[in-house]
């Protein structure tokens, strides 16, 4: 095993290893002279080479994270509230709902069950809907190609 070379008079100071300069190297944030020194050090230092590989992997993982979709209707709701000026004063929509509930809970209990409620969360039974589509579409159409896919149980990778 090669002994790590001294790095004493490098642009990175007196340490033995490259440390956070490794991330600087990965991100293209080192000056050309620093890059050269870092690369030269890596040739003879398996510790730094291994650390470079590890932080490089973490960097790749975070960069590969997909975009996140906001929940359905989130911005539409936010814009409606915002136009009314509702979120210009006080806590967020979500937290405000909780605070309102604290005040209103006692009164509301007596009136629950009256009026038209907001729709509850519901799960579309997607595999059943697929079957309903295929069976209805097969009536009066090419029976085999419309119906055969229903013989394959639908799963969506969960």
């Amino acid at each position: 095993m090669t002994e790590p070379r001294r790095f004493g008079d490098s642009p990175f100071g007196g340490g033995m290893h490259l440390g956070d300069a490794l991330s600087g190297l990965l991100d293209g944030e080192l000056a050309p002279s620093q890059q050269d020194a870092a690369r030269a050090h890596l040739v003879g230092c398996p510790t730094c080479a291994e650390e470079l590989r590890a932080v490089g992997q973490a960097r790749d993982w975070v960069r590969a994270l997909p975009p996140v979709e906001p929940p359905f209707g989130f911005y539409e709701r936010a814009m409606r509230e915002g136009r009314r000026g509702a979120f210009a004063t006080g806590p967020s929509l979500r937290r405000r709902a909780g605070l309102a509930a604290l005040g209103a809970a006692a009164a509301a209990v007596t009136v629950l069950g009256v009026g038209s409620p907001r729709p509850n969360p519901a799960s579309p039974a997607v595999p059943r809907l697929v079957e309903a589509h295929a069976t209805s579409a097969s009536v009066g159409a090419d029976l085999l190609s419309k119906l055969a896919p229903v013989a394959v149980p639908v799963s969506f990778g969960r």
Partner: protein
Amino acid sequence: MAGSGVPSWEEVARNHGRFLYTVAYRLTGNHDDAQDLVQEVLLRVRKGLETYRPGSLEGWLSRITTNTFLDETRRRRRRPVDPLPDEPDRVVPPAPGADVAAASEGLPDDVQDALRRLPPEYRAAVVMCDVVGLSYQEISQSLDVPVGTVRSRIHRGRALLRQALA
């Protein structure tokens, strides 16, 4: 957006909603807090609390988002915490061998979970660098810390992530 003028909060919501939500979610790690954070960002934009300099709109938004996130995190801390180990000679734990690395493939949920467990300041730096794609200089200006600190936080954040996912 309307030329170099300050974008309205509605423009932000309509045209950059997904970007903003992604940054908020990566910082907070859950939908509830992400929604609150986005709401707070829209409020700051609406009130004109943040100076807008013509340039990268997404850079500007991510600066507001990250600072709002860090403000909120600090506000929630009930007791002083240990200062962050920004000093450069703190040893980064050794990485596991290649066979171990092959077993953990950096699945998005696992990565997000590990991200959520990073100290907020590290998380902010990593998100700004690797999710938003800002330079160290831009991150340094956004967070008002030296470039060397940015580099150190990013590096330590990555090392901790790698360790958590080993």
